[in-house]
């Protein structure tokens, strides 16, 4: 699980059938210091997270396959939840 910030979204007409109907957002993984780390990932979003909001994402493909309800889905990342505003990642 990683903290990430929603920085965009993507649309696709031709895609694996398991992805139809799902929102694909671009999530930038963050370090504990709130700095971007690694390239943004395309993530299945079931909660309607807005641009700029911080979310918890998971790379657990088996959970993502359960969310899209298709055991043959190639989807890997999913949004697990939206962080409350003002959550401080610094300890």
């Amino acid at each position, binding site marked *: 699980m990683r903290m990430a910030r929603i920085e*965009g979204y993507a649309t696709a007409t*031709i895609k694996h059938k398991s992805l139809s109907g799902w929102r694909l957002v671009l999530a930038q993984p963050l370090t504990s210091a709130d700095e971007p780390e690694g*390239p943004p990932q395309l993530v299945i979003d079931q909660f309607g997270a807005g641009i700029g909001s911080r979310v918890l994402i998971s790379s657990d493909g088996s959970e993502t396959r359960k969310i899209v309800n298709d055991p043959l889905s*190639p989807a890997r990342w999913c949004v697990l939840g939206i962080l409350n505003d003002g959550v401080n990642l610094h300890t």
Partner: protein
Amino acid sequence: MATVVGRVVLSVRHSAFKGERLLLVQPWKTETFAGKQEYDFAIVAYDQFGAAVGQTVAISEGREAACPFPHPTPVDAYVAALVDEYFYKPEGSPSKGV
């Protein structure tokens, strides 16, 4: 996200590959999202949707790349979607989309 840069054709193939279409794709780096022509090292991805050279695609890597196949298939990267358009606006910068 990745950009298709070429095709790979096999004359001798693994028995799990039948009628496969393999593409050479360059995964995007953070700089690519910002509009620069910088990419990660090219990888070979399995394509079932007919992506063309120059097209932007969504790829799955790792365990999930082999999931769409009913039988165990040696696939490391799989084209999951052909991206029509995307919107990208990192915090504190002007928006960028295609």
